[in-house]
């Protein structure tokens, strides 16, 4: 039952991101809900499950894109591991640390993904506008997604 709930949450996260980018973009910008989902799962879940969530959400993001299949899966898996290390020293449940964490990890994961893309596909898929603006949108989205995931964990035992 719990695995079905997690599957539903996973699909809902990916679909919500896809729907948002289709209907609610503002000057071509939208928060990366898949990134936010991966970060929130990394904060809330145990390390193995967190890395698995990062990997599978990354696959979802890879499926939506056309270049470097596996790039986001690697990026979000590493991000989940980094969060696992960091959260032993910092309280990632608080609003402020989530904002700062989302901002820093957005840029780090973007840079890492750009590096992967350039190395494996010889293209840079991230434009400057997105590179500069999206981390702030992600920072705003993460606390909201965190509350949704936290609710799913507390009420239904997911994550």
């Amino acid at each position, binding site marked *: 039952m719990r695995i079905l709930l997690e599957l539903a949450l996973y699909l809902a996260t990916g679909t919500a991101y*896809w729907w948002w980018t289709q209907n609610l973009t503002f000057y071509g910008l939208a928060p990366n809900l898949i990134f936010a989902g991966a970060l929130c799962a990394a904060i809330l879940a145990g390390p*193995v499950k967190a890395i698995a969530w990062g990997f599978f959400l990354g696959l979802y993001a890879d499926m939506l894109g056309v270049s470097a299949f596996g790039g986001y899966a690697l990026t979000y898996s590493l991000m989940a591991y980094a969060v696992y290390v960091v959260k032993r020293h910092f309280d990632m449940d608080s609003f402020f640390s989530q904002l700062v964490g989302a901002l820093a990890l957005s840029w780090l994961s973007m840079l890492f993904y750009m590096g992967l893309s350039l190395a494996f596909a010889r293209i840079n898929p991230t434009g400057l506008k997105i590179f500069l603006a999206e981390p702030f949108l992600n920072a705003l989205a993460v606390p909201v997604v965190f509350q949704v995931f936290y609710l799913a964990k507390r009420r239904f035992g997911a994550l």
Partner: protein
Amino acid sequence: MSREKDAANYALVFFAVISVLLLLFPASKPAHTARIIVSYSLYPSLHYGAKYAYFVRNVPANFVALLETDQENRALKEKLRGLELRLHEASALEEENARLTREMRLSRALPWAGSWARVVNKTPSDWYGSFYINKGSKDGIAVNDAVLGMQEGRAALAGRVFEVYPEFSKVLLLTNAAASAVCAIAPAGFEALVEGKGTWLLKMNYVPEEAALAEGAELVTAPGGLLFPAGVPVGRVTKVYPRESFMNFITADVSPHVNVNTLKEVFVVRRALPRELAAARMEQE
């Protein structure tokens, strides 16, 4: 803790290796197969998302439309309030216009010259005693001028001008306890004194016993009273009191024709007063 760390490390290595393999060999058969599996597994969510997207597709547009409608609604409500206010004003003006037209028509039929004035102030503590009108000495108003009110299609005595200022005047009402007028009882023509009581009723005094005064008798100003022009309707007898044993006249209650509560405009009669009164007027002025 160490076990958890080991598990995390193994998981990271496992998923990282898969990712790197996918990245390294994008065109290989396993990578291609993985890609197809992922696509076929996840595309349904997009397919059904798209299928039911029309439920939420218009949410942003509808939300904006809702906000705009709300703003429009507020603006229209404000406009409606303004229009209702104007409608009330217009109906009040229409009513006033009809009343003034009626009064103007009536005043043309009056045998006296004079001018119209608007009642501008009534004092609650002296409601049946006096009020102010918006005409003064600049408009030719003088002390002791008779003041008529128009009600039920006729002119009737309301009082007299008591004090005159350049821009306005004070009118002493007939219902004031200090006011009085000599009246004649139609049709016999007996004269008696009508006095104010400070209430909505007047008191009629000094009526001869043989006057055969009856309820409903009409009173008009008498030619003998110098202050008011003769023949102005004053009121109607509502109650006749029997003669007291120690008096040789009877008294009665009189209901004035002019209702102070509904009086908005008055007609101030201008006429040549007898010499004695004119002298008194000059002294006061």
